């Protein structure tokens, strides 16, 4: 389980995160949602250790990342997988080589076993046929799937996804969401996703943290979304007229029931 306690982060005297407290549940898809610029990516970067917060604790099964020694941090990072907004595949490596990279770096398996594992991961994201291609030769959605395959190659305990649906069409976004959710439950991974995609919120949000201007505003699950009373949360979720109608219908149904 990942737990954050009283987390603060600022850049040049501007508070980006202030007093964030949250428990990310094991084997579930945890979402961090909020408007662009609300501090989601900074929060995720703090959680994975790419940024150092000013104050607070980030506990991985009780081990504090901030006070951890370099060696322990390195070992912890081998339990992490991350999917970046831009997929962050290595341009000079083929799709198969990208997925094999963490295995080549850290696994003690033989070359044949590493290839087999990488092909298994690629098959899991339905991309085995693209293994010989280079990142520049495949679509954005496929790149994200390769990033997922690379992230799960070392059987991580924690999976972090920074806006995995950005720049993708709604249909491909759903595929990516389902893939991440499926992998989370299949391999008992603690997954944290940064998103502002409503389909993701309503589809896979087992646990949701809403932040606004760097502050924790609302906490709940996908089932609580329509009954939330937090104004800022409602303004964010029901920004479109379509969703406002959906909410009214939902409330009416509940009232009739």
């Amino acid at each position: 389980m990942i737990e954050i306690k009283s987390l603060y982060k600022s850049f040049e005297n501007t508070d980006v995160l202030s007093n964030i407290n949250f428990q990310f549940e094991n084997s579930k898809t945890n979402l961090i949602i909020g408007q662009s610029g609300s501090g989601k990516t900074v929060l995720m970067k703090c959680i994975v250790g790419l940024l150092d917060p000013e104050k607070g604790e980030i506990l991985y099964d009780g081990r504090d990342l901030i006070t951890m020694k370099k060696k322990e941090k390195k070992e912890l990072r081998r339990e992490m997988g991350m999917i970046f907004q831009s997929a962050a595949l290595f341009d000079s490596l083929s799709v198969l080589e990208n997925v094999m990279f963490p295995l080549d770096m850290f696994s003690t398996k033989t070359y044949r076993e590493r290839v087999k594992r990488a092909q298994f991961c690629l098959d899991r994201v339905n991309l085995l046929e693209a293994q010989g291609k280079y990142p520049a030769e495949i679509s954005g959605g496929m790149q994200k799937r390769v990033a997922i395959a690379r992230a799960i190659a070392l059987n991580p305990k924690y999976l972090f996804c920074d806006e995995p649906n950005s720049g993708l069409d709604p249909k491909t976004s759903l595929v990516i969401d389902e893939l991440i959710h499926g992998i989370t439950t299949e391999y008992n991974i603690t997954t944290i996703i940064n998103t502002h995609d409503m389909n993701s919120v309503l589809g896979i949000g087992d646990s949701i943290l809403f932040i606004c201007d760097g502050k924790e505003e609302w906490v709940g699950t996908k089932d609580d979304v329509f009954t939330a009373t937090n104004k800022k949360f409602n303004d964010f979720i029901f920004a479109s007229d379509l969703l406002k109608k959906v909410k009214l219908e939902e409330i009416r149904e509940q009232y009739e029931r």
Partner: protein
Amino acid sequence: MKLFTPIFNSIATVGKYFQLMGRVFARPERLHMYFKQYVNELVKLGVDSVGIVLLISFFIGAVICIQIKLNIESPWMPRMVVGYTTREILVLEFSSSIMCLILAGKVGSNIASEIGTMRVTQQIDALEIMGVNSASYLILPKIVALMTMIPLLVIFSVTAGVIGAYCTAWIGGIMSAEDLTYGIQYSFQEWFVWCSCIKSLFFAFIISSVSAYFGYTVEGGSIGVGKASTDAVVMSSVLILFSDLVLTQLLMG
């Protein structure tokens, strides 16, 4: 206080550079992965530069030969002076220092933009998340590869320059090949070639490490990458010129 800001910034930059070098020279995690990178870099930074080195050196050798012939040679000068001067210019300065300045442009901008692009596209973050020492994995093979290849490039450069001089003498008919050969062999000191190679090793380190520093610390998007490439070339060139002065005095003074 504002007056001192550039000085403080420069000191901070030097500090950050040495911090980065500390990470670069940390113990490699998987040697075979580093070796793979090293071989790739040998090709990318060294072998791919052979063509430009040969081309430039050939023409500069030829031009030096013509210039010396036209401007220095006189009935009072021995006939070997053209060959002798051409060789000395090539061996002592052109093939090590000037060629490295040219390589700072080609290789330095390549290193800075490659690593800078990896930074802005989060590929370096991806390496860090995996627990890889990204500084060492990306930069160390480049430094070692360029330091391996550069003495060879210097030798190639001298050879191409001498061939260029011969071609001028032969095709242009400005002097006989015998006179040129006599001048080129006259009072040859092997130490000068070693000096050239030793200097080039320092220059190779400067080009690769300084360019990698600017690439690794890129901030922003494509504009940041462009600025890093330019800064890398400018700073490498300045440091090459400065260290050339110091090294020449130390090695030959």
